[in-house]
């Protein structure tokens, strides 16, 4: 399970577990979290809806933020997003 992954992340990174949610809820919740964050902070998003890969990547780029990384493991997606503005 991914639980240990969460525990190894730094405490100052915000986390969003969007697994089990369907498009467009993952990108919607990502948007809410990013809006709440301070500029410069990072958000880790976990999702398992295949549509989320495109939705979230596209949303991040279109809104001027940085997609630091995208890891895919089977159907699990892990995004690292940095709030730029």
């Amino acid at each position, binding site marked *: 399970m991914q639980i240990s992954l969460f525990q190894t992340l730094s405490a100052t990174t915000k986390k969003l577990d969007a697994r089990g*949610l*369907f*498009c*467009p*809820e993952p*990108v*919607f919740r990502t948007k809410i979290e990013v809006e709440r964050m301070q500029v410069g902070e990072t958000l880790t998003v976990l999702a398992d809806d295949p549509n989320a890969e495109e939705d979230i990547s*596209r949303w991040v780029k279109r809104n001027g933020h940085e997609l630091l990384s995208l890891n895919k493991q089977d159907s699990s997606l892990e995004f690292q997003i940095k709030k730029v503005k």
Partner: protein
Amino acid sequence: MGNTPLVKLDSLSNNKVQYFAKLESHNPFGSVKDRAAYWMIKDAEEKGKLKKNHTIIIEPTSGNTGIALTGIANLLGYEVEIVIPEKASEETKKIIAKLGAKLYETSDDLCPKVGAGTDQSIALATSIASSRPDKYYSPNQYANEANFMGHYRGTGPEIWKQTEGKITHFFTGVGTGGTVTGISTYLKEQNPELKTIGVQPQQNHLIQGLRNFEESAKPDLFLRRENTVDDWITINNETAFAAVRELFAKEKLLVSPSSATVYAAMKKYPIEEGIVVGIFADDGRKFKSLYAQQKVFSEEEFDANLKQAKHLSKIAYLD
């Protein structure tokens, strides 16, 4: 609820053609959507889909359904969550929050597979409800037959009775399609010669509640009986907002953008003879900031107009 007044529009009427507006703001929560909300909830209860104090009702809306559903559902003992486009008026969102619903606001760019505005809200509400079916119920006004029924059994017969069976032309905007299909189907069963004219705003419109079918999908509820509409007319933002001013100046009615759009359509569409009825879905009270922004009325003018306006109804959340 229902049995809303039919008011003659003297500014448009002449010896050959008489024009009337059905004032749907005279419903408990201020709009035509009270009918859909009530019928959808009652229908869900009858089908055993709602558990009091457990089920959360979640619904996508451009505004009026959010208000109606929240008001009515809360009275009946259900929690409500509303998914609404960001660009809905601030007053609308405040009213919904004040009535006790949780709000999710969608932007136009969330889901690239669907259109703008309420299409995004529909996608989000559907995804939230389908991932937790034990907890959530979505009436889905865009596909729910009970929405149609509320008009087929309610608004349609009212109009027939109020015009003593003499109505020849029916005008309304289209949002979910419930109003147009429900009323038109009933009226045409009484008089197959009746003409139904669908009113559309422009693309990129500011008319809360209505859809332009070039930029937004046709809801299932509408598609089922699309053929009931005989003709279409498109009204742009400028004309609609000018009509808001005109309606106040000539009839002392303080209306919503969608009502003004229907009025502008009735005014523009060529009719030689007949009795014409248009649906005014709600009034102008939620649109003070929009009207100030669009230079329709300044805030001071709006407040002054409010005091002089005729046919203002009593609305539950304004007490």
